[in-house]
């Protein structure tokens, strides 16, 4: 989105046909077709899931505080790891991005709502049910899924408990939800842009979501197929993943990672979009290299389809395949680097100020890059033989996911929250939240690199003595980071009760784009008649 935008803002508040009342009570949320309501639902759901998944991480960290088994049994530990991963990925990060898309995409492109509002409601409401099923399976006899979020066969087939059936169907529902959500985003962007909002004028958040949505529609069905094969292998006697019947356990990994790798970019591309919105605002300068940002995003998405086997270097693929996947994976650094350089160039010779969203964005750039660089190291096949399935990998993906995806979501919430509620959030609390999170998250995840390199495998409930010192620090960092999120919770509750000072329509003095030209708080219905973008 560019500063050249000028709108004839048609805001619903000024409209006469005022049959649009805001419904009240529970049914407002159950039956809603309003993109802002649904966005709010998604965001709160994601946050609750973040707390639940985080609580499981706390169990993991408490058990790993010291060597020896003290708090949980190994089998339960594995369930915690598995469900923590699943919840954070499918329950926290993805729905949070979908929530942001719901709130922002229509406002950014000047649309009255999402293209398919009822389907929008449906794709949200099936999610809580899916997670209800997943979580309740933890209480079944034999426990819930304990095979890692990657559910490699045959641990998830022949050797798993009954709850696998429920796991499979709950993943199916999550998939349906994501696909419907993604279709909605794509159709909205293709078909609902205000007159004059050409593709190359769309804000980058819209662009990155467009490409993310494409990835989602392309790979979620593959995940559905993978769980389906797990189901038939476990319960109906097929042998896709069983050598005795002519199948191969590694086939499962190929199918899973064909989904799984694009999935990790699904969790980072919208983050790139968010950062690309925030950095220019607080640099008071146009985004550097808009066009190359778009092309870089598209290249990352396309490359993401041909790198999946970098998760499988130790499975015994032929050398030629290992070589191919190593090189393809390394290539992804180039477009990602373009993004990082563009952000830095945007800040360069700007007029920087450091409000909360900007602090999170800067933390994102630094910490995500650290995570990306460790990813690059993982891509080097011969060395990955040493890194694979150790805490080095755990460190890598928490840097890109927690200080990457999650930090970007927090940045986004701080950035747009005043627009949503019309009030400035509690800045003191926000500062506490930022600094506590920033410090503790590094105490939490940085030493994981060391224990990983020193040889600590992942997914173990107990470890050798030489890892004890660092693990203690990791756990302390973990508890501190968890507690820091309670500050965020308090801040959000205050914000939702509309406490705080009223803000102007533009909110941040460098902010540009359609969403900043409508009143704060954003009216229930915006752009009933589309604005004209010049």
């Amino acid at each position, binding site marked *: 989105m560019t500063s050249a935008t000028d709108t004839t803002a048609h805001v619903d508040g000024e409209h006469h046909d005022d049959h649009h009342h805001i419904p009240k009570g529970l049914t407002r949320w159950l039956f809603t077709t309003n993109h802002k309501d649904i966005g709010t639902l998604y965001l709160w759901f994601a946050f609750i899931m973040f707390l639940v998944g985080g609580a499981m991480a706390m169990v993991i960290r408490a058990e790993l505080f010291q060597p020896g088994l003290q708090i949980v049994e190994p089998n339960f530990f594995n369930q915690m790891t598995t469900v923590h991963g699943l919840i954070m990925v499918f329950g926290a990060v993805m729905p949070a991005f979908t929530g942001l898309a719901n709130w922002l995409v229509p406002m950014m492109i000047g649309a009255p709502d999402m293209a398919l509002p009822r389907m929008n409601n449906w794709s949200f409401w099936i999610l809580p049910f899916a997670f209800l099923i997943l979580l309740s399976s933890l209480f079944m006899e034999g426990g819930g899924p304990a095979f890692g979020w990657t559910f490699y066969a045959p641990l998830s087939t022949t050797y798993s408990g009954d709850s696998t059936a429920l796991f499979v169907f709950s993943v199916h529902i999550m998939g349906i939800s994501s696909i419907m959500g993604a279709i909605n985003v794509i159709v909205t962007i293709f078909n*609902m842009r205000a007159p004059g909002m050409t593709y190359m004028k769309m804000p980058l958040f819209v662009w990155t979501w467009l490409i993310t949505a494409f990835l989602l529609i392309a790979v979620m069905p593959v995940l559905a197929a993978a769980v389906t094969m797990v189901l038939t292998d476990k319960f109906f006697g097929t042998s896709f993943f069983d050598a005795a019947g002519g199948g191969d356990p590694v086939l499962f990994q190929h199918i899973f990672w064909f989904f799984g790798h694009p999935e990790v970019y699904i969790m980072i591309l919208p983050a790139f979009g968010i950062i690309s919105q925030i950095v220019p605002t607080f640099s008071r300068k146009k985004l550097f290299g808009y066009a190359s940002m778009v092309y870089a995003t598209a290249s990352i998405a396309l490359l993401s389809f041909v790198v999946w086997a970098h998760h499988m270097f130790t499975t015994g693929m032929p050398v030629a395949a290992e070589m191919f996947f190593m090189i393809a994976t390394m290539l992804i650094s180039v477009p990602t680097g373009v993004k990082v350089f563009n952000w830095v160039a945007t800040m360069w010779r700007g007029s920087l100020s450091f409000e909360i969203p900007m602090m999170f964005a800067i933390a994102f750039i630094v910490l995500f890059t650290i995570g990306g660089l460790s990813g690059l190291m993982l891509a080097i096949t011969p060395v990955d033989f040493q890194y694979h399935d150790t805490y080095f990998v755990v460190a890598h993906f928490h840097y890109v996911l927690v200080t990457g995806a999650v930090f970007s979501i927090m940045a986004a919430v701080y950035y747009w929250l005043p627009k949503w509620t019309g009030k400035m959030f509690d800045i003191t609390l926000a500062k506490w939240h930022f600094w506590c999170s920033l410090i503790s998250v590094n105490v939490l995840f940085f030493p994981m690199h060391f224990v990983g390199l020193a040889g600590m495998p992942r997914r173990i409930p107990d470890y050798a003595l030489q890892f004890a010192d660092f693990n203690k620090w990791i756990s302390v960092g973990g508890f501190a980071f968890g507690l820091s999120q309670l500050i965020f919770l308090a801040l959000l509750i205050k914000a939702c009760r509309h406490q705080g000072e009223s803000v102007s329509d533009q909110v941040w003095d460098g902010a540009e784009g359609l969403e900043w030209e409508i009143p704060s708080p954003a009216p229930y219905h915006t752009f009933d008649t589309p604005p004209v973008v010049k």
Partner: protein
Amino acid sequence: MAQQEYQKYYVPEQSIWPIVGAVALFLIAVGAGNYTIEATSDKEGFGFYTLMAGLVVLLVMLVGWFKNQIDESMSGLYSDQLSRSYRQGMAWFIFSEVMFFVAFFGALFYARNISVEWLGGASNNAMTNAVLWPDFVATWPLLVTPGGETSTQMGWYGLPAINTLILVVSSVTLHFAHVGLEENKRTQLNVMLLVTILLGCIFLGLQAYEYIHAYNIGLTLDSGVYGNTFFLLTGFHGLHVTLGTIILIVLYFRILKGHFTPKEHFAFQAGSWYWHFVDVVWLALFVLVYII
């Protein structure tokens, strides 16, 4: 966007159907999960009933939701832009279905060209064959698995070939039905649509017959990857034909009620796209599963 005249985009008021649909999916998932467990072990439970309840609720939801939608459409609330949204939505939905089948075709490719070959000692797996499966010889179709399970090949001539013909013809008849609709030739529309539905049903009947035949000659779901890929691919395809046929039947009744105009007939278009898509999947399936 060349949108000369502004048409208001119809944003529906609140609706109860999505949440009903969410409950339906919940019941279906819980039911299907528990039913799977119960059916494959000797546990007792309510899985089957929950599943059926879910399907009933889903049906109610579909009827209610579509009724809503049809009423809105008939009362002229829709704009061109909205029809475009529906069409694009349907197109992307079909794309997601394509990817679902791609995964299964991928599994077929892998089983056939990689895992079976490797078990037979190809690539970097000489020792796999020599040490673990010394008696195994790689062939496709895999009639004797490494574990010693045997099955029989399903030829492409006969039933499958007839079925291919049926589906291709049905695509053509559906196309003529569509042309009939666009040119406002209602008889052509009715007859052609009915023929298509009939062909769909015959296809399904023959498919069922083929399955029985397969089980009789020893090609079963659990007889190794050849049987696995055969049944899962044809099975999911068959489910899609069933769904497509149901859609066509619903369309037929709507046509009897006088819905659709030569210009406004998104539902018909969506149904026919779906049918053509199912048809294309079959062609891929016929070549990859049966012939080569």
